């Protein structure tokens, strides 16, 4: 197979993420309109905020009649994990101009982060910037398009949110991370993070997720240090 341009490679490697995110866009569009947001406002939220999980939380808060500052603050806390992603990409982004880093920050999602970070970490740094743009734009257009589908379908199929389409995201994340767990420190990080995420499941604002991230990173480092000691002793 002819090697694709980095831009196209970014799009291609993101296709599975598009499939996983599409049903979420549909559900979001349907729920937002159902919660009383106008179709224009629903599309504008997907276009401007572009952060699925916080958009879902916002819609449920709107439905509950929450005040604006509450929704803003909740959005901030739910999106805190993006700061971790931002930090994690920083070492690779040092040669990128600000004019590229700003739009890529705007487009930083769980999905594009997973795809792009993997590419950069595994040493395919060539064309990293174009690759990131390809992945980000694909996610963005996909999210907008499927939000629109949800807005349209929401009126026809009010029970859409109960169809179980939410499994798609689960499948996407599981499929992308499972092959990365072949080394013991990565596995340790995953197990520790999962355990803490289960314990902190009931905590508000997805704070359990942040605690899980910290625990996972710590476990990964500890396992790495332990295996280094073992090799040193051998």
């Amino acid at each position, binding site marked *: 197979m002819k090697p694709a341009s980095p831009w196209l490679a970014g799009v291609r490697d993101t296709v599975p993420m598009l499939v996983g995110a599409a049903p979420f866009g549909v559900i979001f569009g349907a729920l937002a309109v159902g919660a009383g947001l106008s179709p224009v406002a629903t599309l504008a939220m997907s276009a401007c905020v572009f952060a699925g999980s916080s958009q879902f939380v916002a819609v449920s808060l709107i439905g509950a009649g929450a005040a*604006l500052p509450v929704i*803003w603050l909740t959005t901030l806390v739910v999106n805190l994990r993006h700061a971790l992603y931002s930090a994690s990409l920083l070492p690779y982004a040092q040669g990128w101009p600000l004019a590229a880093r700003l739009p890529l*920050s705007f487009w930083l999602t769980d999905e594009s982060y997973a795809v792009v*970070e993997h590419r950069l970490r595994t040493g395919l740094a060539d064309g990293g910037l174009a690759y990131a743009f390809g992945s980000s734009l694909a996610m963005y257009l996909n999210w907008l398009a499927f939000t629109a589908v949800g807005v349209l379908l929401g009126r026809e199929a009010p029970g859409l949110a109960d169809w179980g389409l939410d499994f798609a995201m689960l499948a996407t994340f*599981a499929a992308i991370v499972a092959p990365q767990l072949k080394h013991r420190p990565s596995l340790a990080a995953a197990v520790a*993070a999962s355990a803490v995420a289960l314990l902190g499941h009931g905590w508000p604002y997805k704070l*359990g*997720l942040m605690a899980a991230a910290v625990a996972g990173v710590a476990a990964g480092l500890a396992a790495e240090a332990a295996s280094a000691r073992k090799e040193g002793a051998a």
Partner: protein
Amino acid sequence: MKDALWLIAGMTAVTFLTRASFLVFARTLRFPPAVRRALRYVPVAVLPALVVPMALLPGGAWSPTPANPYLVGTVVAAAVAIRTKKTLLAIVLSFVVYLVWRLLFA
């Protein structure tokens, strides 16, 4: 809804803030090697932390059983991805299994 403008403006601002937090400083900020090593574990920590609660606690109810479509589907997605390295195949196959399980047990 006039508030929609403020709602979206505020959400856009705080979301961008979290995403740009470190990336805007890429030219001036250098992490020490220990921090860089730690950050390499972010994906393998965060993604399982997103997946595992959704698989084991669908709808908030603890359900570690083979009749739980979310759990079975997730295991299939992970297994197919590990065996074949084909992410899309893993997603499609696991979704089919998930749907069948839903029909059978839900």
